[in-house]
């Protein structure tokens, strides 16, 4: 199953690229997807980007590029005014009539998968490599990414051999106020599980929490992702706005950790392995990190 999926993505990737190779390589890129913009930068083509959407926050230098707005709310004329050769984005990009208008104006619109799995990422990187005319490097980047994730899985395995997976909750908030708990079927849930944690939340999606339910779940580790504050300021705001959190195990034992909320959008990004490793050391403090 896994193999055939990979084969399909590979074939699809090859077919698309042959079409685009027929012409010259695109020189002016607009990217409407956070993780995609990051990959373009990792592949050394940041200078080709002439516009990005609001989900493209990394690397920091992308913020100085013209913003084409939110990926689902693109404007045809706005993008055409940047004179791009290609518009890249995930399946979430839209609205569809606008994409049709952009295609009609002769700009290639390339869609990528937003699925958080390695097969999709391999397809994405191959596709990007072809569009950039440097497939070798794209393959190399994918290989090393895969290795890092595999290494990390070893780390999790060896940690779980000796310890029970800690019960974890992930709070997504805005300057501490009214945080949402990440439930099943979210990127956050996937991250926690990959890092070797056990997500205590059983609902689907991101939902506001009830204070009582939170105290009842009493997680060992609390991970928070704040959209407007970072570091100690975010931690303090969270505790100040939600004093009940002070009484749970995680806070008493000083096991409240931060996560960058931009990791939770748009598929597997290049910063993911490092964050996963970090989370795992936080989940299993007594187990030495591999390497």
């Amino acid at each position, binding site marked *: 199953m896994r193999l055939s999926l990979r084969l399909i993505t590979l074939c699809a990737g090859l077919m698309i690229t042959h079409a685009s190779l027929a012409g010259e390589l695109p020189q002016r890129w607009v990217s409407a997807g956070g993780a995609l913009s990051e990959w373009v930068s990792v592949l050394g083509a940041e200078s080709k980007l002439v*516009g990005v959407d*609001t989900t493209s926050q990394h690397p920091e230098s992308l913020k100085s590029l*013209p*913003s*084409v*707005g*939110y990926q*689902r*709310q693109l*404007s*045809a*004329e*706005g*993008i*055409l*005014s*940047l004179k791009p050769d290609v518009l890249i984005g995930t399946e*979430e990009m839209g*609205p*569809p*009539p*606008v994409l*049709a*208008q952009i295609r*009609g*104006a002769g700009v290639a619109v390339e869609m990528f998968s937003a699925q958080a799995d390695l097969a999709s990422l391999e397809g994405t990187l191959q596709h990007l490599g072809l569009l950039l005319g440097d497939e070798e490097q794209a393959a190399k980047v994918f290989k090393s990414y895969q290795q890092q994730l595999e290494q990390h899985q070893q780390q999790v395995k060896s940690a779980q051999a000796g310890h029970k997976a800690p019960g974890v909750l992930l709070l997504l908030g805005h300057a501490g106020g009214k945080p949402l708990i990440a439930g099943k*079927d979210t990127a956050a849930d996937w991250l926690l599980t990959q890092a070797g944690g056990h997500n205590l939340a059983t609902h689907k*999606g*991101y*939902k506001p929490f009830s204070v009582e339910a939170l105290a009842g779940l009493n997680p060992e580790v609390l991970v928070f992702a704040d959209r407007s504050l970072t570091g100690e300021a975010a931690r303090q705001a969270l505790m100040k706005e939600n004093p009940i959190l002070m009484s749970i195990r995680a806070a008493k034992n000083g096991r409240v950790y931060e996560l960058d909320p931009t990791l939770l959008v748009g598929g597997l990004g290049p910063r993911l392995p490092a964050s996963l490793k970090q989370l795992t050391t936080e989940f299993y403090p007594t187990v030495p990190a591999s390497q």
Partner: protein
Amino acid sequence: MKTLVKPRSLFIGLSALCLLSIWLSLALGPVSLPLFDTLRAALRLLGVPIQGDGLEQAELILGQIRLPRTLLGLAVGGVLALSGVAMQGLFRNPLADPGLVGVSSGAALGAAIAIVGGAAFGGLPEFIGPYLLSVCAFLGGLGVTALVYRLGRRNGQTNVAVMLLAGIALTALAGSAVGLFTYLADDATLRTLTFWNLGSLNGASYARLWPLLIVTVGVALWLPRRANALNALLLGESEANHLGIDVEGLKRELVFCTALGVGAAVAAAGMIGFIGLVVPHLVRLLAGPDHRVLLPASVLAGATLLLFADLVARLALAPAELPIGIVTAFLGAPFFLFLLLRGRH
């Protein structure tokens, strides 16, 4: 009765402004086209064979992006303002807006069902998928309005006060249902829902435009024929009856036209507030309450205001775009306040 502006000069002024807004809406955008190119591209669109560098691009931007967008703006603005006049006439209350009979909340409910439910069902057939949202919004608006109208009827008579209260109750009901869908929605659908509630003329295409244009032209031709009846209704229901007006028939027509017009506008461009409530007011402040002037002038004023608002929406943050619902109120409310304060002296 003394008015600020004579009807004749009002129509001349509004027509000039409307033409100006159409011209600006075609000539300005994030892609800067030289004036000469815009003109030549316009001629090419009309079938005059002109050759030139980059004209194909200009023709595409003009014909496929700006023209449908301008037509959409004209239709939406006009029909929303017209529905506002109809509702304020029906309820004989200047605070009435098309939302009062439930058409907006019904459309919002339809849209929420389409956005959240559509995402849950996934693979819809190709022919319905892209239009699901519009169709659901339209049917939702029509359905809730029909229910409000039905609730207001007793013994063959429509009680406007009961209808008003039924409208408020059903709006609250639909609002909580939308809230429930908001709760169930995931992050991505939530954002779609939020943006839909702010409206946009973005991505206008001819396929979506025709139904709205037909409805708008129909309503815009039909309602002004009822101007005298609406004037009589201003005196009161029984007075209008004594003057020989078929009041029940009139009410039915007003509700039907509003549901149809607002439903189609909302289906094409999402929720755009403010126009339906304030444009009729603006015109009344300028030219008095005579519906023979008010109805056609509101169409012009609504269309013009929406086009100007759209210009701001697409230029202010280019290459990104602002939702137009933000801009209509932002532009219109201060102007309205200005007229209101001036009128006091």
